[in-house]
């Protein structure tokens, strides 16, 4: 059902948030959202009446990002930007700030497949089937990626250590094809 009643303006924040989680760069994220709107205009004939507009837009955004990643140069540039830690998200204030920033860094350093799945399910609150639609993978795959991502974050919180302690978990229970 269309909970959002074709409210596209109201999707701006979730779209920009997901784009930032994908690109890990605020400027690139807004470019991606802009490209998503243009693609959605072209493809609006494919939007089925009654479908969830948020899932439809997230899927377009995701596919555009994956297409863009096929260009190795763009990927390298983005990795560079990420390494330089340009501010991507607004800093929280108060005593929680440092802890949130650490957790966010751990989350953003998860491999892309786990990061995407966890973001859609946990942060955006999509159902497993909706997340599967956005990512273009089976529901079971989404949930196993979410499971691995959660385990990695728990490991980070347990250890409160370097993000590096998270890495060995990448090989648990499956292979990760994409290393972005």
């Amino acid at each position, binding site marked *: 059902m269309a909970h959002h009643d074709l409210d596209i303006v109201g999707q701006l924040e979730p779209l920009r948030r997901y784009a930032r989680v994908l690109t890990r760069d605020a400027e690139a994220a807004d470019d991606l959202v802009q490209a998503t709107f243009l693609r*959605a205009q072209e493809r609006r004939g494919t939007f089925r009446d009654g479908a969830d507009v948020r899932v439809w837009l997230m899927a377009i955004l995701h596919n555009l990002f994956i297409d863009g990643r096929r260009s190795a140069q763009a990927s390298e540039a983005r990795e560079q930007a990420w390494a330089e830690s340009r501010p991507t998200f607004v800093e929280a204030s108060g005593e929680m700030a440092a802890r949130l920033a650490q*957790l966010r860094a751990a989350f953003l350093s998860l491999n892309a497949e786990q990061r995407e799945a966890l973001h859609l399910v946990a942060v955006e609150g999509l159902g497993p089937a909706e997340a599967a639609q956005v990512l273009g993978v089976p529901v079971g795959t989404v949930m196993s990626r979410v499971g691995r991502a959660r385990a990695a974050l728990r490991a980070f919180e347990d250890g409160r250590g370097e993000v590096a302690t998270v890495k060995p978990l990448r090989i648990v229970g499956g292979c990760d094809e994409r290393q972005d």
Partner: protein
Amino acid sequence: MSDKTETDPELEADLLALLEGRLDPDRTLAIADHLAERPERVADLLADARNTAALRMALSGSDDTAPPGLVAEARRLQDRLRGQRLVRRVAPFVAAVVLFTAGWTGHVAWQAAGPKGAPPLVEAALDAQAALELRHWMVSQPESAELNAQEVVAALGVDLPVLPKDWIVRDVQIVATPDRPAIAIVVDAPELGRLMLLAVARNAGDSKDPPTAFEYRGRTIALFERGRSSFVLVDESGHPEQLALSAERLLSPSN
């Protein structure tokens, strides 16, 4: 920390829903029983809930307003999608009018009421639509997007209207109807979405029925005749629940 992940995706999906009180009582009891036997999972679950809440906070950027350009794009898309939805709710009717005004002349009074019991031709059109939909998913059954109107006339005795230039033909197939073979054409029409036009030759002695548009089995359907041919237009992209009301309102005599 447990290093193995649960294998039941439904269970995994429900764990956090349980904490957030979003599960119905039956499922809550089932999951709670499941967890009671696995105290280590409860600890993980609390950690997950904590991390989820923290992530939501860490990733929200509420004091960061969207660039005006993005807001404008969002609004433009929103307006177009809403306009498209309005039109689609009566897509076959609109498409039929387009066909009439594009290639055919003459005033036509449309009837909003459907015929008593759908004519066999409408059933045949819906069967054809189901078959074409199936073909669409089958790799070994490629679509044929070439529409040769002259050949259709020669083989089937059907007069095809000239389709508007911006309609894209997706599939053309000969299909069976109770009387004789018909041609089914799947098109993507801008604003209207995906439509199927079924055309079949009429019997010489058939009575001429006024064109009608109606809702049938969750679809809007337009039924009309011209010369020696009968046509059925079926909406493929609309949402069943939303079709009936708007179609009736737009097609009512007072409109």
